[in-house]
C-alpha cells in the first residue's frame, strides 16, 4: 500500500498554518523525537513539540508556511516536476521522507524549513529539521549562474 507523503505533509502544514495546536499534537507519535542539528536541540514527545510551536516569541503567524513551492521526496518516490519546478509530487511506500517548504517568521523573515522525517502509521515519529534563510546571490558567483525570483 502506498503511503501518501504529500497528503501527510500537507496536513501537518495546514494544521500549523491554522494554529490548531490540539490537532497538531495528535499528528505526532507519543514517543516523537525531533532534533535541530544547527543548535543541538532535541525535542521529545508531543507535549514538548506542541510547546515549542505554541510558545514561539511573537506567536507563529497564521498561514506562515508556504506550500506553493514545497518539495517532498520519500522512499520509492517519483519526482514529477511542473515546468517551473515549483512542486514535486511524491508517492512512496516507505516511512522515510524529506520535505522542504518556505516559512515566514514573526519578524518578517522568510526561511526554508527542511525536514528529514520518519512516519509511523500516518503520524510523524521522528524529524530532523534544518532552517535555511533566504540570501542575496553574491556578486562573485554571478558569472556562473542564472537567476530565479526566489526571494519572495
Amino acid at each position, binding site marked *: 500500500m502506498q503511503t501518501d507523503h504529500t497528503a501527510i505533509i500537507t496536513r501537518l502544514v495546514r494544521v500549523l498554518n491554522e494554529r490548531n495546536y490540539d490537532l497538531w499534537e495528535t499528528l505526532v507519535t507519543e514517543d516523537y523525537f525531533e*532534533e*535541530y*542539528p*544547527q*543548535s*543541538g*536541540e*532535541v*525535542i*521529545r514527545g508531543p507535549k*514538548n*513539540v506542541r*510547546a*515549542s510551536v505554541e*510558545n514561539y*516569541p511573537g506567536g507563529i503567524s497564521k498561514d506562515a508556511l508556504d506550500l506553493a*513551492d514545497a*518539495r517532498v*521526496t520519500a*522512499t*520509492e*518516490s517519483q*519526482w514529477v516536476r511542473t515546468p517551473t*519546478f515549483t512542486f514535486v509530487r511524491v508517492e512512496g511506500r*516507505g516511512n*522515510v*521522507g*524529506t520535505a*522542504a517548504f518556505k516559512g515566514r517568521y514573526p519578524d518578517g523573515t522568510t526561511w*526554508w524549513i*527542511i525536514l*528529514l522525517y*520518519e512516519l509511523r502509521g500516518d503520524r510523524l515519529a521522528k524529524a*530532523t529539521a*534544518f*532552517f*535555511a*534563510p*533566504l*540570501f*542575496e*546571490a553574491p556578486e*562573485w*558567483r554571478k*558569472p*556562473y*549562474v*542564472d*537567476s*530565479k*525570483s*526566489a*526571494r519572495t
Partner: protein
Amino acid sequence: MPTAHEVFNTRFVKAMNERNYDEYEALLTDDYVGEYPQSGEVIRGAKNARAIVEHYPGGLPQDNIDTRSTRIAATDARWVRTPTFTFVRAEGTGNVGVSAVRARYPDGSAWWVVNFYELRDGRLARSTTFFAPAFEAPDWRKPFVEQREAPAER
C-alpha cells in the same frame, strides 16, 4: 556492499575535502542543473559548478566537510542510527536521495549543507541545495528541549 548513494556521496565528499576539482567535475553530468532556492541561483553544467567551488572567495578549506555528521536518505532507504546519531546509513536502489553534511567555511562559520539530488549512472545530474547556519539554542525553548552537544562543537 555499499549502495550507489553511499559510493557517490563518499566520492563526492572526498573530492571536495581534497579540493580535487577534476574529480568533482567528473562526478557531475554534462547537463547538470543545480539550484539554490534561498537565493534563486541556478547553476547549469559541470563547468559552472566547478568554477563555483574553485573560485569560492578565500578558497574552500581542506577537509571542510565533516563526514562524521553526514546524513543520507535515499529511495528504499533505511536509516540506521549510531548511539550518538552522527551517521545515517542509506540503502537505495533509486536515483533520488538527500544528504546533509556539516561544512566549515573560510570565515570559520559552520553550516549544514542539505542537498536533494538525482543521480544518473553514478553522477550527479540535478541538485537542490540549502545552506543552514549553526545557531545558539534560544532561552525560551530550553524548558522543552534537551541540549545535545556543546556550542563549541557545532
